[in-house]
């Protein structure tokens, strides 16, 4: 009899061999970074990379002391995520989480498991569906996530409820998505490119806490909110209207053209 799935033991062994790198983009997070790094289960993450965006405080030193690899990533949230992905050459799965202590390290296993099992390529946390500590998230952040999710559903048929930074994705897939947004639009670009490329996407509720120190660069001030908001809107429009230079986008476009050609025949 032909076996259509891997024997359970072998599949488990393969999943166990999957290497996970946790990337933490950080800018002046000295008050929280060591606790964040220490909270990540080493049984799940083989590497913890803090991508420092030019902190002027002790973020880099504290992260290193807590056991993370620290890389100088240059300016921009997206650039920090990208540099960490480039650095994690031996990883199969990339997990992104914030360095402010708001994301719950206990959710790491839930984010990674569906990808390890081979069922999904991209698993994103949803703060909107998860338990939120009072004061942890501003109403306009939730509204922006819902709006972006609604628009993504309209465009690609994929419904997100949040633009949560806490997410896991196959590293190979991420590298081939053709990501180009190197600032605040990184998260929405990844979500849209994943939908465009037809990845297997799962959204799971994640708890969200108040940051344990410092101030938010996005929601912490009107200027920060406006700057990030403008960048996210611009990214959304650009991704929706311009083709990607990524391999996955090129292949999905070729597949689409072939489908249309065969439909026409």
């Amino acid at each position, binding site marked *: 009899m032909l076996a259509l799935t891997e024997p359970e033991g072998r599949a488990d062994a393969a999943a166990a061999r999957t290497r996970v790198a946790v990337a933490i983009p950080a800018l002046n997070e000295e008050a929280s970074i060591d606790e964040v790094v220490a909270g990540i289960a080493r049984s799940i993450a083989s590497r913890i990379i803090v991508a420092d965006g030019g902190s002027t405080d002790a973020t880099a030193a504290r992260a290193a002391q807590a056991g993370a690899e620290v890389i100088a990533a240059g300016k921009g949230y997206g650039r920090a995520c990208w540099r960490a992905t480039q650095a994690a050459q031996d990883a199969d799965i990339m997990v992104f989480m914030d360095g402010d202590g708001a994301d719950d390290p206990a959710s790491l296993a839930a984010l990674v498991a569906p990808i390890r099992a081979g069922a999904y390529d991209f698993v994103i946390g949803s703060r909107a569906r998860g338990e939120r500590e009072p004061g942890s998230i501003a109403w306009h952040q939730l509204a922006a996530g819902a709006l972006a999710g609604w628009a993504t559903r309209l465009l690609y048929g994929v419904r997100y409820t949040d633009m949560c930074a806490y997410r896991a994705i196959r590293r*190979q897939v991420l590298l081939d998505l053709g990501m180009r947004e190197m600032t605040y639009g990184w998260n929405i670009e990844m979500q849209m490119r994943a939908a465009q490329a037809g990845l297997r996407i799962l959204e799971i509720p994640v708890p969200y806490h108040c940051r344990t120190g410092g101030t938010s660069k996005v929601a912490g001030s009107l200027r920060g909110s406006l700057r990030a908001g403008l*960048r996210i809107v611009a990214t959304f429009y650009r991704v929706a209207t*311009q083709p990607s*230079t*990524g391999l996955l986008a090129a292949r999905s476009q070729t597949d689409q053209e072939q489908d249309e050609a065969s439909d026409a025949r």
Partner: protein
Amino acid sequence: MPDDRRNLARAALLALTLIELAAPSQAQTPPTAATAANPVRAADLIDLPIVDESKATLGRVRAVVRTDDGKIQLLLPLGGLFGFGERLVPIPIESVVVTGPQVTVVDLPRDRFQKSPTWYGSHSEPLAATETIAISRR
């Protein structure tokens, strides 16, 4: 004939001397800009700054593509704001060297980029991120 033999020997000695003189002069040739080709993953080039020989930044590597005839090119975005209105210009891989954390264009004058044709994606495909290409290092 003894004279002929002597002339032949002199000619052979002269030729050997010339060869001897030529050999060290080759070895002393100053190294060229591109010294050795090294393997680099395509993904490692993405977002690296592209500079000209006077170290002025032209942009950052957007993608690495292979044309239908097998040539490797880096795509450089020019112009635009927030990613709108920009155009992508292909740079042949032979015209660049990796110099530390950046890519230096060595064979093309800066003004050439403004006149270069725009890349639209036809007749080429992005390289897989893990694909390795040979690129010169300085």
